[in-house]
């Protein structure tokens, strides 16, 4: 009966958005009079996984067969479905991510479950099971009643605040039988930037647009990001022009981010860019054009030249540390 929460691992550690998912799941468990069980797939230590207990999980299932070392959404979906069945879970929570969307979809089709992704708040249980989800790329919300016997929810960053308590969780090895068909794809190679902060997890993002003028001018922006411990992003033309790597592209057709602070440097604020950042808590726009549309979407604005402003902000951050 327990609420099941899938936690994503990054180098063996539970990601922050997954801790939010555990908190969310524990809240639902409390409201429905049951317990929360977390599921982790891949290599990790029992001591790290036990941390889910502090966020409300009573138990952590750990599937760590060697075949599962690579993030394989189809195999992970089969493991998720097996865990849902073993735990007899009616509510299943995943953080929203590419991996989790694929897992929740395939698991839902296996079990005939409802799947609702992009959920922004805790469910309303007063009359059925209702959730609010983000639609039209952050421009609106839909309140939907989830009707399947099994309900799989993908929750957005900041849907709840993850607060550590004093609970502990028991870590149990979980080894369902693996499905051969899930492994038909051969991974030929991976290119992964190492040591970079993940954009979807980041609390602060410093992002640059065409106003940065060229790929060689990024240092002042990187310096500010470094001083703030921020991840870096960019507008679509910047990645189209290869000034910055594609995985930094934010917006309607790129990554959707939800940091506490988004600093836009030399980005005009086209609606398609704003669609990727409108879930940010606080937005700062720096642009030399006082008419730039970004100022309409921002909380703080500076009309000025990025090459003058950025180094001064970096210095101000370092001076107050």
């Amino acid at each position, binding site marked *: 009966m327990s609420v099941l929460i899938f936690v994503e691992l990054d180098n063996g550690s539970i990601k922050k958005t997954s801790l939010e998912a555990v908190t969310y799941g524990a809240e639902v468990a409390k409201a429905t009079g049951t317990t929360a069980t977390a599921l982790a797939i891949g290599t990790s230590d029992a001591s790290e996984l036990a941390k889910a207990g502090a966020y409300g999980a009573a138990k952590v299932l750990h599937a760590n067969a060697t075949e599962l070392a690579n993030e394989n959404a189809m195999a992970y979906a089969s493991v998720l479905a097996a865990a849902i069945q073993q735990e007899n879970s009616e509510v299943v929570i995943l953080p929203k991510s590419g991996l989790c969307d694929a897992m929740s979809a395939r698991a839902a089709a296996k079990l005939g479950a409802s799947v609702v992704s992009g959920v922004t708040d805790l469910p309303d249980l007063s009359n059925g099971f209702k959730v609010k989800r983000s639609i*039209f790329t952050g421009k*609106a919300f839909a309140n939907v009643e989830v009707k399947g016997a099994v309900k799989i929810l993908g929750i957005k960053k900041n849907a709840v605040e993850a607060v550590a308590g004093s609970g502990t969780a028991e870590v149990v090895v979980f080894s369902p039988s693996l499905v051969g068909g899930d492994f038909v794809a051969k991974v030929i190679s*991976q290119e992964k930037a190492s040591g970079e902060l993940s954009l979807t997890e980041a609390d602060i993002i410093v992002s640059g647009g065409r106003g940065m003028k060229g790929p060689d001018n990024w240092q002042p922006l990187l310096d500010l990001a470094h001083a703030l411990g921020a991840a870096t992003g960019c507008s679509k033309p910047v990645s189209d022009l290869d000034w910055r790597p594609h995985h930094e592209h934010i917006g309607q057709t790129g990554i959707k981010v939800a940091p506490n602070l988004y600093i836009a440097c030399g980005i005009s604020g086209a609606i398609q860019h704003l669609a990727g950042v409108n879930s940010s808590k606080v937005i700062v726009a720096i642009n030399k054009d006082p008419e730039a549309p970004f100022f309409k979407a921002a909380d703080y604005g500076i009309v000025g030249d990025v090459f003058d402003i950025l180094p001064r902000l970096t210095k101000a951050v370092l001076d107050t540390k």
Partner: protein
Amino acid sequence: MKILVCITNVPDTTAKISFIENDTKFNKAGVQFIIGPYDDYALARAVELKEQTGGSITVLNVGEADSDPQIRKALAIGADSAVRVNCDPQDSYFTAAQIAAVAKEENFDLILMGRESIDFNSGVVHGLVGELLGIPSFSPVMKLDIEGNTAKFAREIEGGKEYLEAPLPLVLGCQEPIAEWKIPNMRGIMTARTKPLKVVEPVAVGDMATLDKYTLPAPKGACKMIPADQAETLISLLKTEAKVL
């Protein structure tokens, strides 16, 4: 090679979103509709693959008659035939079940979709369809080549890319730079008029999730402007006022 491309009919990316009928219906008045931008990438790559290997492209939309202009546009860009499942889908599972029902009738080698629709933003229809058909699905795919019966493709992963190979048939959710968006030419527009567009009725699916009502986000407050010569004060405001540092 037989390719199925699933397209959404969605408000233009600059459209203002509003609702009518007690916030239970999207207000289509004055809104320009487009093929979903990611679906447009999928379609563009399908057209290029067909040029290389021959075969046919079918486009599929689960939607009402107002999708037809976008379906005709897809035919003008290079699809050979179209199917529209006549309904107003409210839920990803329902949509996926319709797509799977059409796909079961024919053996497509490749089912291309967008990584996500820009109205529902779910990113789940490809996975659902893959599982309902019992074939693999991958997303988001940013590079795709077909050699014989094998797809060689690159998928975006966090902070980078993964190169994969898998046997057909497959369901793939696509994004740029898989191909450049294509604009229909005059000849395409003329021939599109006579290409077949079959309208079928939906198959029954149990209620999975139903809409209660839509809401809009609270309007943003005014932007606090900081004079450029006092730019440094931003940092203290972010600390003490906004409390995000």
